[in-house]
């Protein structure tokens, strides 16, 4: 008996198929049951009829989507004139501005890190990574202390006599949310940019300069094209979580601004409105699928694994 188990084990390890089943099998099953199945179920629920007690009636219907959008078709303005659609558009704007902010802040630092190595690099990376590893909730909370009419920013400026009454820009709202999200996702951009800039042969830059290219021309024609995979993967890793952000707009919007993640969360947690929640989530999922499909035209999936 014992001997036969032993041979079984051995043959499992010996054949190629056995090895594959042993290594790739468990995670495929696990992710299949706990990632693919739930997402598929959510897509299904979003296209089903949900009754007033929030139970699923197994009848295909577009009612859930009808709740989110206004009456009419996408090219009519009534279609966009609902709380959900307005919040969706606002979320896109916030996510795009955050991505642009992260890129313009991270690029100079990533460039510097790629050109310098050694001790300075290790210290700077530690200083960047530490806030990154710190709880996301803590970082959003730390900005909650900074903003607001009595927040640290306004209080300090008032104390210094630089302003006579609290500035609106340091109050809670869209600018505060953008600052909070930039702070939260900046390291993703930095690390992606660094990973691709670090692989660049900088003698190419010198060659271009020697051949008479101006600095902006070198940036545009040499550095940016070579850093493109990093720019694209960094942008995805900032844009996607910003779009579905929940804590940051909750803390830094203080109810004045509602992003799509907050709307969905509210309906699910207070009412368990699974139809509304899953249909709303589909907008995020669809945006991600489109964003990744666009990205894959320029970069390989392997290059996206940088973070």
């Amino acid at each position: 008996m014992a001997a036969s188990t032993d041979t079984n084990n051995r043959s499992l390890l010996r054949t190629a198929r056995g090895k594959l089943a042993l290594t790739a099998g468990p995670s495929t099953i696990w992710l299949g049951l706990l990632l693919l199945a739930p997402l598929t179920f959510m897509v299904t629920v979003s296209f089903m009829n949900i009754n007033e007690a929030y139970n699923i009636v197994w009848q295909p219907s577009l009612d859930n989507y009808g709740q989110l959008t206004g009456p009419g078709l996408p090219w009519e303005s009534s279609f966009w004139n609902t709380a959900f659609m307005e919040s969706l558009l606002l979320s896109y704007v916030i996510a795009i501005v955050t991505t642009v902010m992260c890129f313009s802040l991270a690029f100079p630092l990533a460039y510097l890190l790629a050109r310098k190595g050694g001790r300075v690099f290790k210290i700077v990376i530690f200083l960047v990574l530490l806030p990154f590893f710190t709880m996301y909730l803590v970082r959003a909370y730390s900005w909650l202390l900074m903003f607001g009419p009595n927040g640290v920013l306004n209080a300090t400026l008032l104390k210094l006599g630089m302003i006579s009454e609290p500035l609106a820009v340091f109050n809670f709202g869209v600018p505060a949310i953008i600052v909070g999200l930039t702070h939260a996702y900046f390291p993703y951009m930095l690390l992606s940019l660094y990973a691709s800039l670090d692989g660049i042969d900088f003698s190419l830059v010198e060659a271009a300069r020697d051949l008479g290219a101006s600095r902006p021309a070198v940036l545009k024609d040499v550095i940016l094209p070579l850093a493109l995979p990093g720019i694209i993967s960094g942008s995805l890793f900032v844009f996607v979580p910003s779009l579905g952000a929940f804590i940051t707009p909750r803390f830094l919007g203080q109810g004045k601004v509602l992003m799509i993640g907050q709307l969905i969360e509210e309906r699910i947690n207070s009412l368990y409105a699974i139809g509304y929640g899953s249909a709303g989530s589909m907008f995020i999922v669809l945006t991600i699928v489109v964003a990744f499909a666009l990205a894959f035209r320029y970069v390989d999936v392997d290059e996206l694994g940088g973070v």
Partner: protein
Amino acid sequence: MATNTENTTDVTTVERFFDHRTRERWLRRGLYGIAGLLLVFLWIPLAVMVFLSVAQNASTLFPFEGFTLQHYAATFSDPGLMMALFNSAQVATVAACIATVLGVLASFALARREFPLKSAFRTFGILPMIVPGVVLGIALLIYFRTLLSAIPVVGDLFVPGFLTLVLTHSVYGFPFVLLIVSARLYTFDEQLEEAARDLGASPLETFRDVTLPIIAPAVGAGFLFAWIRSFEDFIRAFFTKGTMDVLTTAMFSMIKYGAAPKMNAISAFIVLVIAILLAVAMNLGNVTQYVAGGPDE
């Protein structure tokens, strides 16, 4: 005449050279300046928070009323908060163990085996990291609460609580282990294993004595990543935790009810603990390389 021309060119070259040097210097200063400002931007809110955690007046800088440690004392004697901290550590440990076992096995499949749909397998593997927390949280909540809980006999297991949260976080932590360990395996010299086998070691002995010691730092780093991800996650836990509280959800309700002093103290404490963990990890293994995916060792 000829000498004159020569002179002029000489002067311009020299001027250009100096001009170039000055510009280079200013450019470098500008870059360092931006980098410095960025670090200030990253650090200022955290520094303010740490400062407020030891200030008598915990809500804002002014009026400043002196230093105190009473907020820390109150935080660490709050039974609800300490229970939540304990729950978080438990969930993170179990979830990271599952993620590590599955992630290490899957890394071997990626690095060692050739099979159809390999790139799909890889994309599928990093998907939990890409799907936004709100979406993953809601999808799993509906799946557990509406679908699995309806199954007779075992359904009760899937009522949101400890188990569902562990399952959720095991999925969330998986990609981090996969990325780190597979990156290590790609650079692994397989001849070492062949040599061990030629010298008569069994596959399991080879794994234990040759493979494992070499990939151990990467496995450790993967576990640490998965652990931290679970520990710091709020949104996925918020949906699948049921009535149990973990640290992040307890902190979230504290902010809702405006208990800032304790929030400052527990947050500052977390920053400190993570700083120590990160410094240790960076000295043990090349964390930056794992994170930034830089050139392989």
